[in-house]
Structures are given as structure tokens and as C-alpha cells.
């Protein structure tokens, strides 16, 4: 406990138990975000705007102010907040349903607007909180509670790749997709979280990181199988990569 406190400082509430299911990828991402906030020393001026879904719990484990937005609207709330209080750091923490189903318009326009806010999309490729229904990110043929015979792409379209859509948006300055299925991928993910927040702190523009995470409960898999499934199936379609990093040039100026 003492050692952990050194790393997480005051941001992560270590005495608070996660209510995420065992093995849930949210735990990892929440911790990474808390770590970055602590490392930058921005806890006191950081505000989290969380979406509806399991990601909505994320702020309960951190000693930061938080706003629970209506389903899908977190990026718009973040924009309004940032405009009225530009000195604060604002990030959204949303699932793939919140981000890419109901809230795609707000997310993409926020990316395009380029106002320096950060959006984290935690993609477990289904609606976790409501019990594992198909989301836009559900893979072709994947069985969920609303696709009992597997996702039929002729009826539901193909799994939606979100950061790819931001590649051409000049307001987006840091755009990445990361995974969290092993130590190496987690280290990369941690680096992207830091860069995304740094991008905002420097006032460069919009930053976005998608995280491919497992939802053992929704996938009806054991914890280890869900991570294996992430590593083997998910990242094949949703390839982790940094799509855009337009921060360096500015650092030289």
C-alpha cells in the first residue's frame, strides 16, 4: 500500500474497491489515467466527464471532480466546460457504445473542432453494463445477447473503426489506438495516455485514445480467455497504432 501510494499519490483512491467485474479492462485504463494525472501534477484542475456505461464508474476511484453526462454527449459537455474554463484539463471517459453508437456525432465534431480536450474511448466491443449486447465495435459473426447467431454485417454493418475517421481532421493532434492484453501493450497505452493529456496541456488541439479491452462478463469468457481473445481476435481488426502525432514540431518551436 505504501509503495503504491508513491506511484499513485493522491489521484487514485486506493482504499476504494473497484466495482468493475473481475478481469475487466476498465480497471487497467482507469489506473493508467490516474497515473498520468498524478505524474503531470494536474489532479487539482482536472475534470472527468464520464459517459453512461461501466466507464461511468471510473471517476469514483479518483480524487478529481467529475461530471456524469447524458449518454453519448460527454464530448459536447467537455467542449462547453473547456470554453468556459480553459485553464482546467478536461477528459471524457466513454465506452464504445457511448462513443461510437449514440455519441458518434459529438465525438467526431469535437475531434474536428480541435478545442483541446481529450477523449478516451474504452472499447470492449459490446454494451457491458446492460448485459453484453452488440455495439458498433462488435466483430463480424460475434455472438452477443442481441446477435444470437453472430453479428450479420449485411444487417448491422461492419465493426466501426473510430480513430481512423479522425485521421483527416486537422483539429485532432494526437490520435491512437492501444490495447491492454499484456505488459508491453499496457506500457504503450500508458505512453499514449500521457501524450494525449500532454497534447491538451500544451493547448495543441484535440487528443483521442481508443483502448481495446476485454469484458469477460459480456463475452461469457474466463478472464484469461478474454485477454487471449483480445490479443488474437480484436487487435487483428482493431490494430493498435498511433494514427497521428502532431505534437513534436511544436515542441521544437
Amino acid at each position, binding site marked *: 500500500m505504501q509503495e503504491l501510494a508513491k506511484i499513485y499519490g493522491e489521484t487514485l483512491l486506493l482504499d476504494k474497491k473497484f466495482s468493475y467485474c473481475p478481469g475487466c479492462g476498465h480497471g487497467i485504463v482507469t489506473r493508467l489515467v490516474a497515473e498520468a494525472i498524478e505524474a503531470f501534477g494536474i489532479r487539482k484542475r482536472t475534470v472527468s466527464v464520464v459517459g453512461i456505461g461501466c466507464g461511468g464508474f471510473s471517476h469514483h476511484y479518483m480524487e*478529481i*471532480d*467529475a461530471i456524469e453526462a447524458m449518454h453519448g454527449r460527454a464530448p459536447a*459537455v467537455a*467542449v*462547453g466546460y473547456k*470554453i468556459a*474554463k480553459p485553464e482546467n484539463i478536461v477528459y471524457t471517459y466513454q465506452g464504445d457504445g457511448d462513443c461510437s453508437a449514440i455519441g458518434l456525432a459529438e465525438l467526431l465534431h469535437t475531434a474536428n473542432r480541435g478545442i483541446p480536450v481529450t477523449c478516451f474511448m474504452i472499447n470492449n466491443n459490446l454494451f457491458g453494463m446492460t448485459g453484453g449486447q452488440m455495439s458498433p465495435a462488435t466483430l463480424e459473426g460475434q455472438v452477443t445477447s442481441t446477435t444470437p447467431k453472430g453479428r450479420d454485417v449485411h444487417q448491422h454493418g461492419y465493426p466501426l473503426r473510430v480513430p481512423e475517421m479522425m485521421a483527416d481532421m486537422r483539429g485532432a493532434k494526437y490520435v491512437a489506438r492501444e490495447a491492454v492484453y499484456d505488459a508491453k501493450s499496457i506500457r504503450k497505452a500508458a505512453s499514449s495516455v500521457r501524450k494525449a493529456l500532454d497534447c491538451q496541456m500544451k493547448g495543441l488541439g484535440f487528443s483521442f485514445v481508443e483502448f481495446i479491452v476485454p469484458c469477460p462478463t459480456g463475452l461469457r469468457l474466463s478472464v484469461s480467455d478474454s485477454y487471449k481473445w483480445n490479443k488474437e481476435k480484436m487487435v487483428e481488426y482493431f490494430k493498435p497504432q*498511433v494514427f497521428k502525432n502532431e505534437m513534436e*514540431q511544436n515542441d521544437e518551436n
Partner: protein
Amino acid sequence: MVVRRNVIRYSLAVDEKKRSNLKTIASESYMKSETLFLKNAQTFAEAMVRCGVRYHFAYPITPATEVMKHTSVILPQYGGRMVQMESELAVANALAGCACTGTLGATSTSGPGMSLMQETISYMAGGELPCIMLDAMRVGPGDGDIVGAQSNYFQATRGGGHGDYRVIVLAPASGQEIVDIMPEAVKLAYTYRTPVLFVIDGVTCTMTESANFPEPHDYASEFDTSSWAFTGTGDHPKRYLLTGSYTHSQGEELNNHLLAKYERIKEEEQRWEEIQVDDADVVLVAFGIHGRMGQDLVSNMRADGKKVGLIRPISLWPFPDKAFEKLPESVKSMLVVEMNHGQMLDDVRLAVNGRLPVHFLGKTGGDMPLCTLAEMTAKINTLL
């Protein structure tokens, strides 16, 4: 992949110099009382900015667009900005985000745009977030028509969003009244931590008239929001805005808290204008443009020896029930006139509670989307 390109730092910082020196710049051109000749939608924009609104979020829609056109010009002069969003959904939520900082923001919209905002109005009522909103009412349902109407009375006073909530609804009837009531609106928004919604028919919004503006005064900044604003844990222990509930008891507590607030508002914030009701045979009840026409109607008919009175609700929620509590015995009936097919009519009937017959005259849409003074007069003559 690193793209090498010149990156322009995005500056969000409002020109603090402008903000703090507002009195200086304004003393040259903006800080004196003056009479302006503006479309009432522009008067709304001027009035809210002069009372301290610094952020206006909006999406183009007729006839409310005039407001955002005007604020896009004047707000930068006050160190604020108009932010055009991608939809009314985004508008309402950006407004909520702005309110979370304790800053007073505003929006303006019409018909379908108002419908899109309902979810967030429910959210802001639940989250107790103050803001100023304008519904420049036009004909519905659906896309309806851009012609002015009063068809959103139900939506405004009952709430088109979900849940047991209310917002304060104000219905000024002229450009001058928009100016006069705006400081009140800001005070109401902060005192009760609630959205304050103006409903003004599109005909009134698009007409141009003279209005006397007092010296600008930033009422918004006089309210201390530090006890609730979500400005970061540097200012206070962790706070979070939660309009949903994790336990059933939390949901009940929130609703009881809101109910008590709404009861207080009902008791203390009813507003109306009353003309010669004391000895009237018939009382006209109308808000907005018809209420304003009622001022002439009463004096014209009184000049002919006909005892007509007027009750013009200015706050639609809380509805001015008190105006109907002690109606004199002389009153035989009432006439409600609206630019719709009978919406406020329900509230008048509830207020009268069966004691008197309540008649109705109304219309919506068309080249002449309201009842003329001649039509109103003719109808009242049938009741005398």
C-alpha cells in the same frame, strides 16, 4: 507515424485584459444606457450579454438565428464568445458543461431545436445547473413552419424531457420587457440553480422596436458558485455531478429536494400584469403578443363603456395562480387567447377550478398566425 507540420497552438484563453478592462472599453461605447432599435431577437442577445452572459451556444434555426448572429458580433467585445455547435443536442450539452464551471451560458432555438434539447433540460434541472434559454416559438409539430406561434407552452411548462422537473419559464411581451426582465432571469437562474427558459413567439422575435437599455451590469458574476461548481479539487474536496442514482433512495432524495425547491419557486416567483380586473365583467387572459394587444383591447373597450380586464401571465411556470385566487364577484367569464389550439387554457382552467366559464380563442400557422385585436374584441363582445 509522426506528421511534421506547423502546429498552431490553439488558444482558448479569453482575453483577460478585455474581461477585466470591460468597464474601460465599455465606457466608450457599451457601458451607457441607451435606446436601441433592434429586432427583438437581437434585443434578447443584447440584454443577456449586458446582464453578464458571456457564452452563447447555438445552432442556426429560423427565427432564433438572429440571436446568434448578433452575439457572434457583440460577445467578443465583452470578452466572451458565441459557439456554433453541430446540433442542438451538442448545444444543450455544451451549455451544461459551461454551467458546470459556474459560468452563466445561454442558448437560443426554435421548434425542433427545442425538442432536441429536452433531454438535456431534464438533465440540467436534475443537476441544478443554471442557464438562460430562449425558445423563439414557431409552428409545430414536426418541422412545422418558420412562422411564429405559441405552440410550445406545454413543452416549456410541462417539460418535454423525462422526470418530475420544472424550469422557470418567462414570457416577456415586448422588446422593452425582455430588457427589463433579463436581470431577474439571471438572478432566478442562480438563486434557484435552474435553467430559465424564455418563450417568445416568432412574430414578436422578428419585429423591430425601440427599447431602453440601462447601463450594462454583470449580474452573473455577483453570485458565488463556489459551493457547487465543478472547478477542480484544487478548490474543494472531490465533487461530482450525478443526475442518475446508484441507489433507489438517492433517486427519491433528489426528487424530494427538487420538489421542495419547486414549491418555494411557486410560492415566491409568480409574475403577471393585471389591468382593470377589479370591476371587470370579462377578463382576457393572454401571454406574450396577445397579452400586449390586450392592453389596447382593455382601453378601447373601456372607452366604449365595456368592463373588460386583463391578466397577462409573465411567468408561465410558475403559473400565476395567485392572480386568479381573488377574482372579484363581477367577473362572469374569462377568455384565453393564444397562438395555438389551447395550451395555457389548461392552466387557467386549473387556476379557476370550475368557478367560472373559461372560453378560448386561438389559431396557429398561416400568413396571419395570430388573432387580431378586432377578432379578440369581437369574441369578447359575444361574452358580455
